[in-house]
């Protein structure tokens, strides 16, 4: 039985998720990024719980709890610890390769593109959940765009985590999630990835005393 509220609930949650990603796009400071990411994961966990209630598969509840626990709490904690420890003076991304204004417009374009791809694919999944497919594409492409257009390594990590969120949403909405072992494996990978990149960030800030990737260009063929 589908309550009308749930349907627009789905749409509303999709819109909130997109707003959270845009929030990540526009924020400048390191801590703003991490906060934006935290909101994003919280909304994501909510969506997963929602899908679980619609398709009433019990594993999805566990998965949403897991995502909330790890992605919304542990990972932001690590990232906050990292941003505090970084001894680079200004914790701002001032001159990204593409100006903030332009990057927002491009993000919008990417969202429209993901909707076009979604239409091209005409996937016959459960109609209700299909709302989240274009959003997951959008998350994926915006994450990719963040990595390409930003100068600060931490921001690139954020882009990476957004791509992972997009993937996670895509998996849940399309095939209602993998079996549990694979979910746990994915989570472990993400956490390990974040830990290793934070170690790298520490080393980078200690040797280059700034985490700008401009000074990561010595290995090249010229």
């Amino acid at each position, binding site marked *: 039985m589908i309550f009308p509220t749930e349907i627009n609930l789905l749409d509303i949650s999709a819109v909130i998720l997109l707003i959270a990603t845009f929030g990540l796009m526009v924020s400048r400071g390191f801590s703003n990024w991490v906060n934006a990411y935290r909101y994003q994961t919280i909304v994501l966990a909510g969506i997963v719980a929602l899908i679980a209630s619609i398709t009433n598969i019990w594993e999805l509840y566990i998965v949403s709890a897991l995502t909330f626990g790890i992605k919304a709490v542990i990972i932001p904690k690590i990232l906050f610890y990292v941003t505090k420890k970084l001894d680079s003076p200004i914790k701002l991304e001032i001159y990204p*390769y593409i100006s903030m204004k332009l990057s927002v417009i491009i993000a919008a374009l990417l969202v429209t593109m993901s909707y076009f791809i979604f239409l091209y694919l005409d996937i016959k999944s459960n109609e209700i959940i299909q709302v989240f497919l274009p959003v997951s594409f959008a998350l994926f492409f915006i994450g*990719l765009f963040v*990595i*390409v257009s930003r100068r600060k390594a931490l921001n690139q990590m954020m882009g990476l985590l957004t791509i992972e969120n997009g993937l996670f949403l895509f998996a849940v909405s399309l095939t209602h999630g993998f079996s549990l072992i694979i979910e746990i494996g994915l989570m472990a990978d993400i956490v390990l990835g974040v830990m290793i990149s934070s170690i790298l960030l520490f080393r980078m800030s200690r040797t280059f005393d700034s985490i700008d990737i401009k000074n990561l*260009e010595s290995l090249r*063929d010229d």
Partner: protein
Amino acid sequence: MLENFHLVYAIVGFFSLGAILGLFSRGKSQHVYLTYIPSIIGSFLAVILSIVVFTSEDIHITLSSQQIFNFEIFIDGVAAFFILIIGLISFAVSIYSLSYSKKFDDKKNNSNLGMLVNLFIISMILVVASNNIFFFLIFWELMSLTSFFLVIYEHDNENNLKSGLTYLVMTHLGTAFIMASFLFMYAQSGSFSFDSFRDAGIIPDYVRDVAFILAFIGFGTKAGMVPLHIWLPQAHPSAPSNISALMSAVMLKIAIYGIVRYLFDFNSIDDSSNYLWWGLGIVVIGSVSALVGILYALVERDIKRILAFSSIENIGIILIGLGLSVVFASFNLTSLSILAFVASMFHTLNHAIFKGLLFMTAGSIHYSTHTKNIEDLGGLIKKMPWTGLMFLIGTIAIIGLPPLNGFISEWLILQSLLSVFQIPSTILQVSLTFASLALALTIGLAAATFVRLFGISFLSKSRTLKAANAIEVPRFMLTGKAILASACIVLGILPFIGINLIVTAFNLSYTPLSPFEPLSIITEDGKSFASLMMPAVLIILLSVFVSIFVFVKIIGGKTSTKKYNTWDCGFGGLSERTQYTATSLVEPLSRVFAVFYKPKNEIINSFYSDQNQYLKKSIEVSYTTRNIFEEFYDLVLSFNLYILNKIRKIQTGKINAYILYIMIALLSLLFAMGTGLIE
């Protein structure tokens, strides 16, 4: 039948024995004998093997193992003829290097030379003997690899390494073309072995044409045809002389073997198959390489570079013969096509012999005078009389003067060119006469080059101390050269040996000559077009010599001869500086061919002090000619490197760019799929 198998195994065994001994007898004093005696025996066995194959039937061994490619050896007449060339020349060169490689005793890895020589010879024999693509290419590359290591054997001076590299890259380019053409044929015939290429049925014509062009370019690079000859004048001089003798005399012939095997064995040429343009292409390239090769040999100053350029010229002549035989065959003039084929094969044999002889003599000059520049030589015939005699025989043979073998093969090629008028189409007749014009000019220029080479390095006064205190080379080197010199004389005086050898080897429908019958060419209507009886000519020469000697003795009576210095118009002793040098001897000719050489004549005078321009310390006249091909190659090379440099720049070091590349790759593939570009 039984002994044929063992002969092949014995040859392979001896050469590998030589190689292994070479490897392990590093420091020992008699390493030379350990490595070269097995190669002498091996090459002698190779000569016997080829004679056995001529007389009895072909050898076919297949070691079929469960592998994809089983190791097949198939020695028919064609392969046996080339094995004969390899055997004969390596027999002489191995004896020669018994004492020549003592020159390298001071180097630490002196026994490597012996090992590499053995590997080089056995890989050439196996190239000629192998019967499927895979092993043909393996031994072909092994041959180029060992000869590469030999070229850079003295790798302490820099330009040896550079010429070694050009050699390696050019031969590899050639092998790539050969592999492409074989794989083209394989794609149609379905099996790797050469037998499947032989039955003409299954392979359509367009494949044969494309495969021919690729094979011709591939083998041409190895043979040193003109546009692809750049590596030859650099590689041969930098190798030790016994190796450049082997390379120039034998390795170029392996490329000719490839072309012959491809032209006459894989395709049957007659007027139905339109291979006419193949023949014309070969003739044109042959005459161009002959002319260009000899023009550069004329003005060269390094003795081994002259010989290398003259190899290009002789390969050109061989190609003219092959081309003509294809042209005649495609007009069904079988007797003329056989004549042209016999001419080019006889010239291959002759060139192998006298080029090996000349390189060995150049090696002995280098051995005793330690210089290769003929401007510092002179008067060697008084110091090294035997080497001088051998070099004279080699020069007379390579110029193509009557008593020796060069004249016979030149005579045959000229006869086949002369009988071009029997071809029905007039345009062909006229164009082929232009080829004969180029050949005639080449013969003249060859005479000039080798007269200059012999005259400047051997006659008159020695120009430097190095040439002055040269001494005759040890015994083994002389025997090595004597073998080839006698082969020149024997083949010159009794040409029927060579002709019968070729006719039986390639089992052409041509009645083999009896010793006394003249070498005659008969036109269709039975009239004798031309005939030659070399033994009779020799008898006439001797009888005339005896009669005039007697006549002068009777009339002139006892006359004494007095030694006195040369006429110097009374100005006082002629020093060696007043003689003609190598450059001035051909300066008139280089002025006649100025359009080709673009000679530059500059005078550099250095002064004691800058202020007064009058007190000159020295005046130096330098006369240089330009080599168009080397400049052309530099141009092409720099263009390619420019493009490669542009592609290389994609590794920019910026991580954003790298992620962008992935995004672009993904989107372009999606776009291609979407629009149906990739189905």
